[in-house]
């Protein structure tokens, strides 16, 4: 008889513990309270009622067991109530979605530009700026590109209305001319900035793009110094596993001139169908050379005493290679879906 009761009580206790464990709100707590301890028909109340029906012999033992259950249950209720009361205000669900606070991104061209500039700053180059509207003299003539020089064809130039010999610079080299006119060697600068060519926008052309050019003029500067400088730059920008290659080229303002290729950043020359290097394994990335003696003379620097090198690169092209951007116009659409991919 008692054993049976004990079993029953044990079952009630187990069920209760299971149920109370799932209670998180006051309402549910009340429901559970009613279920077990309601004066009318609570499970524990029932037991108490039934106690009366028992014989004297069993009553005290059964009473003790039932009372124990009742106490246990009430204590548990108190404990849970307390915790619910505090939970109503303090419970944190970390997994709720975050508020949509705005995040801003710097433009990829600024980031790449800054990255390039910082490498040269670390090599001791000063950053020099100039004007976007320039004279034809600074943009062409001083750079050994005379009026009828065929190289002017390659720089499709925008002209400013009502101002003679005034154009939008086609490269940042006029900054170098201005700097050389105002400073004596040693000269060690880079000139970043926008440049302009009269190109219809397409996947590889925009009428505005960004360049970083560099110039070093000092005593005993030679062609191997140029190669070493560019190699330092390329390896710190693209990584030590990237090689570079010098090829003969032509620029009116340098002699000798060199086109600089880097090993393909995508396939390293291993994919004959590579999208960006077309299987050659090389990517053209920089133009460079030893400063032409006429350019030095135009800036009152004696080419018998000083020599120097210059180089230039397109920021968009470098960004396109580094990030696999397929169309140069994307830089100028300023679509946030594009901007927010970088930075």
């Amino acid at each position, binding site marked *: 008889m008692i054993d049976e009761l004990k079993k029953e009580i044990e079952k009630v206790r187990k069920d209760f513990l299971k149920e109370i464990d799932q209670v998180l709100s006051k309402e549910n707590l009340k429901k559970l309270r009613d279920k077990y301890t309601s004066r009318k028909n609570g499970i524990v109340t029932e037991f108490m009622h039934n106690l009366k029906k028992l014989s004297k012999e069993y009553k005290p033992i059964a009473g003790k067991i039932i009372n124990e259950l009742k106490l246990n249950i009430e204590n548990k209720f108190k404990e849970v109530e307390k915790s619910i009361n505090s939970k109503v205000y303090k419970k944190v669900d970390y997994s709720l979605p975050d508020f*949509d606070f705005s995040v801003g991104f710097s433009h990829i061209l600024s980031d790449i530009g*800054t990255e390039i500039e910082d490498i040269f700053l670390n090599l001791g180059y000063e950053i020099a700026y100039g004007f*976007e509207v320039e004279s034809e003299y600074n943009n062409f003539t001083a750079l050994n590109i005379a009026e009828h020089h065929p*190289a002017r064809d390659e720089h499709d130039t925008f002209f*400013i209305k009502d101002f003679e010999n005034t154009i939008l610079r086609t490269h940042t080299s006029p900054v170098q001319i201005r700097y050389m006119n105002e400073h004596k060697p040693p000269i*060690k600068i880079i000139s970043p900035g926008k440049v302009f060519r009269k190109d219809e926008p397409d996947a590889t052309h925009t009428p505005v793009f960004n360049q970083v050019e560099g110039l070093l003029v000092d005593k005993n500067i030679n062609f*191997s110094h140029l190669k070493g400088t560019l190699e330092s730059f390329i390896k710190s920008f693209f990584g030590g596993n990237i090689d570079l290659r010098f090829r003969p080229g032509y620029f009116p303002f340098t002699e000798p001139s060199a086109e600089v290729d880097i090993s393909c950043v995508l396939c390293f020359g291993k994919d004959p169908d590579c999208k960006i290097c077309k299987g050659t394994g090389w990517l053209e990335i920089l133009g460079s050379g030893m400063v032409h*003696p006429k350019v030095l003379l135009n800036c009152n620097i004696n080419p018998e005493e000083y020599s120097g090198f210059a180089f230039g690169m397109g920021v968009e092209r470098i960004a396109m290679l580094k990030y696999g951007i397929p169309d140069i116009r994307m830089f100028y*659409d300023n679509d946030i879906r594009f901007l927010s991919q970088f930075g």
Partner: protein
Amino acid sequence: MRVNIEYLKKFIDVDTDKLKMKNLLNSIGIEVSELICCDGKDIFDVEITPNRPDWLSHYGIARDIHSKLSEIRFSPFKIAEVHLDKKNEDFSINIEDKNDCARYTGCIVRDINVNESSKEVKNLIKSFGLRPINSIVDISNIVLMTIGQPIHIFDLDKLSGNEINIRRAIKGESLELLDEQKISLNNEFLVICDKKNPAAIAGIMGGKASGVTFETKNIFIESAYFNPITIRRSARKLGIKTDASYIFERGADVLVTQKAVSFVLEMIKKTQKQELNITYYNDVFEKEFKPVFIELYKDYPSAYTGIEIKNSISEQILKDLGFKLNDKVDKWIVEVPSYRVDIVNKQDLVEEIIRIYGYDKLDSKLPYSFNENFITNNERQLIKKIRNHFISIGFNEVVNYIFHSYEENKFFSDRENFLEIRNPIGRDFSTLRNSLIPGLLKNTALNFNNSIKRVSLFEFGKRFYVENGKIKEENILSLSSSGIYLALNWKDKFEKDFDFYIFKSLFSTIFKKFHIEFKLEKRDFPHFKGECSYLVKIDEHEIGYIGSLKKEIIDFYKIDKPVFVVEVQLSKISKYIKKNSFKMWNKFPFSKRDFSFLIDKNIEYYELESVIKELKPETMEKYELFDLYKGDNIPGSKISLSMAFYYRSKKRTLTNDEINDTHVKFIEKLIERLDLIQR
């Protein structure tokens, strides 16, 4: 230019493996842009840099390849030259100005038959990317592609009088060209004329009337040297680029004209059954050719390249390229061949040596060069800080073209003091921006169209304008915001659009960062809504404007939400940025006193502020507005403000009585001055 690899073998025994050939050409400076297959033959499309007209021929390219691969067979171009000064006919060649035409070699051949070229010749012509015409014209093209000398052949019977005149055209003259284009001439054009009329534009294109056809019997062959600048001017004027003009503009070989005529004659002979009847030959070469001599110290190539190049190597390379060297112990006197118009100084010679020796042999060295001039650019530092600041509070940086349409610029200038482009790429790009705002608006519209609901942008860049007849460039920072500021979320259940107060508060954080006091002043700008249009000032300096763009402008960009913008001059901000030195903060506690009052609603907050600043007791450190109310329970002419005033001394803790006393006196004066009603 098209390079037929098979045809190169006429001069050199070169490995015709495509890839090897491509690398070889690349290594000497000829960039291969495309490989074309023509009738089973490999053809390279190569890019020739403008300094190397001598590469515009197969022989010229072969000469450079040979210098790179010294050991291979090289057959110099040999033709028996016609030295005969034949003047059997009464004919004359007259050059008006030898500066325009330094040399003119002419030759008359009579009684020839003009046919179609043989299949081989036609295929060769096609491999050069040209169209076969007839046996005579095809020959002139083969000469061009072989030795790079442009040849023009006239139908002699179509020329009137027995003379050829090389002169400037006279205004009123005209000519129908071979491509049937009719052009009017003037003094800028150099023309080849018969007794009466122009028959060809010198060095560019012949006239249709005197062209060689299948009916032609007698021909006049022209092989000349024209001044590059003269030809370039005419070609640019006409907008015509021909193979001939391309070479003349860059500089042909003045010494090759006779050889070229001999080559033409030799080839014509092969197409005819009988001996050639050459009735006239004349080489007018009035301007003597003076070769260029360059002094080259033997240690210079090594010094300039930074690697050791043996004298014997330099010598060999220059000789293979056709230079003549006169050894003078520690230097060479180098004579430049007539076809190398690009070589004028010792640096040019070093390039020739290192180009052939191999750019891959250069070392990588870093120069030791100390930059004494080094200056840190303050504006760059400022831009970096501002950029980081605004991206951290949710603005996106954009970069736009500097071109706007005329209409867009007019939004921002009441005077027409902006710059226009003479040759824009289109109407929408015809002026230089005088504000960065149109760019931001285009970007805003694009992003709204892509269902992005919050568009906050900024750009650094230049604006351009004319002041006192001079062009000005100014570095500008512009910001714009439009759309939703706070997005709907599950907790607050509301969203908030940008308004002027939010925008202004976001913008002003940059001044907090730099510890700069700025202020706004009501000013009507034509691009802003009348009720929301302000000048931004630091001290008394106007640095820009802020406001809400007027409807007309945002409609123009098809934006249907208010757009708030600010535009300031960077140089003016950078002037106010000071290096602060450390100051100890006040360690005594604050005491706060609140004050709620009614004030006339027409009094603006800045007016209240200026009175507060005027009356403020020494111990009042700051104040703030924490409530603004208008509506029920207060008279319609008033608004209710609640403010907090903070008191403390730098020297000691103030007592309650002291503070109360000061505060009450201050409030009394404030009430009196502005007719406030205490609540």
